[in-house]
């Protein structure tokens, strides 16, 4: 039985490829110094849908996600091999600028990390950085629109200029989302965005993700199977640096093909 599973993890079950891919990953390997963290991963992230990445801790989901906007460049010992393309262009080409890439592929982190500045300054930082607003009125407009999209505006409209770290955890996380969408990225990567939030704040974030899907392509790492089932259209199951199975979320959760996936989602493993 066990040997059977070991043999089977070398290939990905399900449908890793989609017709309308925003990001396509082919034969991706990631190494931390000598240790390999990701093994030959192939996956498409479809346009305007939410792709959930699930799997046990240390399976490489976050590493995988962070490679999609070259966040791992900041780790000197990290090396990425293979082909990752955004709209058909390889993002790891030497002439491709990670700064531009990160403006197109935004990221929301596990722990809410607003800058210790005002709510307004937090959202305005990105547009200012990239010169997206020509004047104060435009900037105000971007800030308000982003906060509205993140469903935070009504809660903070009277305290736009008070310090952001005074907000609650859920509000901070939505502020981070507002900050990310203020520069109108095409893709939003979310690394367990609700893991430090209570169920109510989580529900708000999940609704928000569903809403954002209309305009953005989203990849989300989550430890909560229910969350993956609720918000995503496609789900990929990671195990020890490999994608074991990937497919429609409903199919993965109701009728997993691979034994490891089944074990994980039924709670017998992981």
């Amino acid at each position: 039985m066990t040997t059977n599973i070991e043999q089977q993890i070398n290939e990905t079950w399900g449908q890793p490829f989609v017709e309308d891919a925003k990001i396509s990953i082919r034969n991706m390997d990631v190494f931390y110094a000598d240790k390999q963290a990701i093994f030959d991963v192939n996956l498409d992230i479809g346009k305007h849908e939410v792709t959930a990445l699930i799997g046990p801790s240390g399976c490489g989901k976050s590493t995988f996600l962070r490679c999609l906007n070259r966040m791992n460049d900041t780790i000197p010992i990290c090396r990425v091999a293979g082909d990752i393309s955004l709209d058909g262009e390889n993002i790891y080409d030497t002439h491709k600028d990670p700064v531009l890439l990160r403006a197109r592929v935004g990221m929301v982190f596990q722990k809410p990390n607003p800058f210790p500045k005002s709510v307004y300054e937090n959202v305005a930082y990105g547009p200012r950085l990239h010169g997206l607003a020509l004047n104060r009125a435009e900037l105000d407009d971007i800030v308000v629109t982003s906060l509205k999209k993140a469903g935070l505006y009504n809660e903070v409209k009277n305290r736009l200029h008070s310090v952001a770290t005074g907000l609650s955890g859920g509000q901070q996380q939505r502020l981070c989302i507002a900050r990310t969408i203020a520069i109108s990225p095409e893709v939003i990567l979310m690394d367990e965005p609700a893991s430090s939030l209570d169920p109510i704040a989580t529900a708000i974030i999940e609704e928000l993700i569903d809403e954002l899907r209309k305009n953005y392509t989203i990849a989300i790492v989550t430890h909560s199977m229910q969350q993956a089932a609720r918000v995503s259209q496609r789900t990929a199951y990671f195990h020890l640096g490999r994608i074991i199975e990937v497919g429609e979320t409903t199919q993965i959760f109701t009728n997993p093909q691979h034994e490891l996936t089944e074990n994980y989602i039924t709670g017998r493993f992981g």
Partner: protein
Amino acid sequence: MNNTEQIKKSLKKRYRQEKRFRLLSLLAVLTGFACLFILLVDMIIKASPAFIQTEVKLDIYFSPEKLNISANFDLEALQNANFRGLIKQSLHQLFPTVRKRSDKRALMRLISVDAEYRLRDKLQAEPQLLGETVPIWLLVDDDVDTYLKSDKQFGRVSQEQIAWITELEQQDRFQQRFNYWFFQTGDSREPELAGILGAVMGSFYTLLVTLLLSFPIGVMAAVYLEEFAPRNRWIDFIEVNINNLAAVPSIVFGLLGLAVFINFFGLPRSAPLVGGIVLALMTLPTIIIASRSAIKAVSPSMREAALGLGASKIQVAFHHVVPLAMPGILTGTIIGLAQALGETAPLLMIGMVAFIVDIPQGATDAATVLPVQIYLWADSPERAFVAKTAAAILVLLLFLVAMNGLAVWLRKKFERRW
């Protein structure tokens, strides 16, 4: 015996230990505080005479004949005029019985050498006084000053001088007033004329140069090492050497300053510019080490947040990391500058120990600094310099408190909640 009893037994012991430890810590704090208190009280007591200066009232007749100037005198005539003679004359009127030449000189020695210049300034300011007799307060010599301040116990005064002083006292010709002079002049061989302003300005210019050099260089080096430098053997080597530099005896820096900045680059001797450069070299490791740990302490999530928005590395560093690290950087800078303020040895090597009367007007004028001034005065034989030394120490401490106050204020300003 169950667990609860076991824990109860050990609890007693733990509380006892805690109590003992608390007591010891309190004792340590009190000891430190007591030392500081003793130092301060001792300094204040020793320094208090320096803030008071005795003056004597003499009736001065601005005699045109004696001064050898006419009604419409010019500056040059004033420079050459014999104001000393006026004082002699006035003293002669007070003590007509003093005839012997040596006695006359002893009498004259009661008055500070500064007195004649004060008369000259007075006449220059009010030319109409020529030909008039006016009572004027003049500084007494430091020996007389010490004698009067110490309840007539100390002071190098002869029997005759004591008699004259008593006579003047009976005529109510002495007054003691706050010693503004001390805060307005530079050094002097005469204790009653010696002031601290020259050293204060010297310290100010020196520290200014130190700050302007070491702060930007130190912060930039720290930012580079923490945020940009690749991890390799060269960087490790640099790191080790920065740490070593912090432990180099300060006099070595002085020798370096002498050899490189003065002898090779030909910068002026005794100048705050060179002193500042030397102290900046000395302060750099402190600032770099403190800044690096402050930068390291900035949460990585801040860097990620900014990077994730498409900020370049340099934007991450200067928009977020450095401002957040600023309180720590400032603390390090102030510690470094406080060290530099108290440093004497390297400045001796570059000539800042010279006897300099003029108040420096800039970083290239010859100057001395507060700790060197303290050293110079502590080394002087006149008794009046004891009080001056203590007063200079107080001024140095005040300088330090002001600097720390500024740092605390800046830190409060930059500190932000996470």
